[in-house]
């Protein structure tokens, strides 16, 4: 019974992190048709940025706010210099380009922070464990769920109630129309990209204390988040929610029972779903 509670809560936490990363990726893809393979590295950068910020004395919550902004700025630079010129070319080139960016950023991480894993010190009140339904569960993980829920709520509010958010959603459905309405599409693309990167940054900061911070964390998250967005349907935000829950659960269970080959199960899941439901679980995905 205790273990079941642990598993369920752990999988919720994992799903939550996947969700934030996947939504960021989907926002960028849905709008710019750019599959940002460097997304995992941006996630890692978020975590490393929080390490550095906290080593300068900043507290965890301050880092939670500043690190995503830093990552978003990096994303802005990336978008303007490298991604914008590629938008008109075939998708093969954009994929290879962002693949190159991934290595560039990963190499940068190794260069700046070295190969050894890093650790983040949590504020005292988050370090304890709390009894829940018969098991002692770390407060921090519960806090993570709260942070993630808050981020999602904020994002939903932004997308549904603010003018900018509505513009973004419209642009991802019919970009030409939005452009006809006199809205500057360049700004829309930049906005989407920056928002997506910020999401990756937030996920990175939050995940830092949960899983280890090392130079390969980006790769693992990248592949998992692909699985999530492919299963949920490329570009579908709602699909990402269900997919994140599914993948989080499957991965947590697989890791608990099989450990070593856990990821293989996850990949098989993706393969099976793609084979029979190429548009994703909800059928909303873009089939490109």
């Amino acid at each position, binding site marked *: 019974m205790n273990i079941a509670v642990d598993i369920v809560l752990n999988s919720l936490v994992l799903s939550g992190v996947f969700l934030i990363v996947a939504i960021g990726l989907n926002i960028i893809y849905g709008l710019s048709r750019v599959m940002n393979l460097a997304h995992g590295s941006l996630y890692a950068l978020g975590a490393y940025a929080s390490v550095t910020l906290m080593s300068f004395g900043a507290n965890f919550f301050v880092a939670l706010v500043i690190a995503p902004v830093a990552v978003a700025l990096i994303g802005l630079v990336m978008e303007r210099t490298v991604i914008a010129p590629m938008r008109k070319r075939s998708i093969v080139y954009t994929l290879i380009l962002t693949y190159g960016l991934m290595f560039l950023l990963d190499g940068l991480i190794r260069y700046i922070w070295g190969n050894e894993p890093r650790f983040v010190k949590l504020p005292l009140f988050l370090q304890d464990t709390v009894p829940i339904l018969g098991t002692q569960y770390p407060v921090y993980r519960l806090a993570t769920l709260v942070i993630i829920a808050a981020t999602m709520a904020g994002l939903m509010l932004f997308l549904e109630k603010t003018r900018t958010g509505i513009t973004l959603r419209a642009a991802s459905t019919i970009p030409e129309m939005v452009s006809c309405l006199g809205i500057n599409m360049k700004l829309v693309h930049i906005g989407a990209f920056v928002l997506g990167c910020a999401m990756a940054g937030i996920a990175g900061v939050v995940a830092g204390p949960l899983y280890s911070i090392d130079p390969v964390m980006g790769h693992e998250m990248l592949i998992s988040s692909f699985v999530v967005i492919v299963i949920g349907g490329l570009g579908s935000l709602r699909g990402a929610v269900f997919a994140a829950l599914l993948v989080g659960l499957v991965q947590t269970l697989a890791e608990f029972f099989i450990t070593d080959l856990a990821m293989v199960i996850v990949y098989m899941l993706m*393969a099976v779903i793609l*084979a029979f439901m190429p548009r994703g679980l909800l059928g909303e995905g873009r089939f490109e």
Partner: protein
Amino acid sequence: MRGKILALAIVVLCLAIFPFVVKNRFYVSLINQMLIYGLLAMSLDVLLGYTGLLSFMHNAYLGAGAYLVGLFLLHVSPSSLWLTLLVGVLGTLILALPVGWVQVRTGGLAFALLTLAFGMMFFTVAWKWYSVTGGDDGLMGVPHPDISFFGMVAGNTGNPVAMYLLTLGVVLLCFLLTWRIVHSPFGAVLEAIRENEARASFVGINVRKYKLLGWLLACGLAGMSGGLFILWRGYIGPTTMSAFAGAGVLMMVLLGGMGSLWGPFVGAGIFILMQDYISTMTEHWELFVGLVVILLVLFLPRGFVGLGDYVMRFRKE
């Protein structure tokens, strides 16, 4: 056409006498490596340049071929060269078939993502299945069979010069075979799929079937390169199957130029030279690869082959 055959003959001749002129084992081994990776890069070009399908981890099939050949030599028959190469290629094809079957049902983007996921799956299996693949340590002590034709022994694969010549021969055969295939109606279908999948299907082409066939061709060639790889090196480990190595193969194709069969060989040569040179200077090889890929895509998307065209245009004016 005549000119091309002549050029090819000259290149092959130079390559063939190379190990007898340059006695240094290191260089012979280096060119050998370039030929093997050239074959792998060419197979990726069949997939990417001709069929338009991007694969991030094509090296997974080099790895598959290498492990299969290695395991065969270690556990079944340490001395049959041709049989083991055949087993390697067939085994790789058997592995590639279900993967390809799933992958061709999807479009370009999802296809590429799936190659990444499946590639990582192969990598994870190679890394974790310690009892079979030796895990992190890889397969070691792989025996070196003799190279024999109809009972006459011509050399041993452990001998650098003999291995080099074997590689040259096999790679040349594969090159000619592939050249013949892509310049046939089959190849034209692949190119049609690359240009416009929808239109190809309107003309009545069974797009999925041809994508799968193109995929199998590419993976079979990769498997052969894997077999040659392990014979050359005597060792295979999971690093050769990593995502980073996969980027390397992609870079070779980019460097050399997509859509020509010889371009990737040039790309492989350049890449391996760079790798050798740069890794002695800095351990931040990853950073450099990323940067070069980005610059290539931005400024030189057609690679080395494209450079040739650029020069030709200059000369005409």
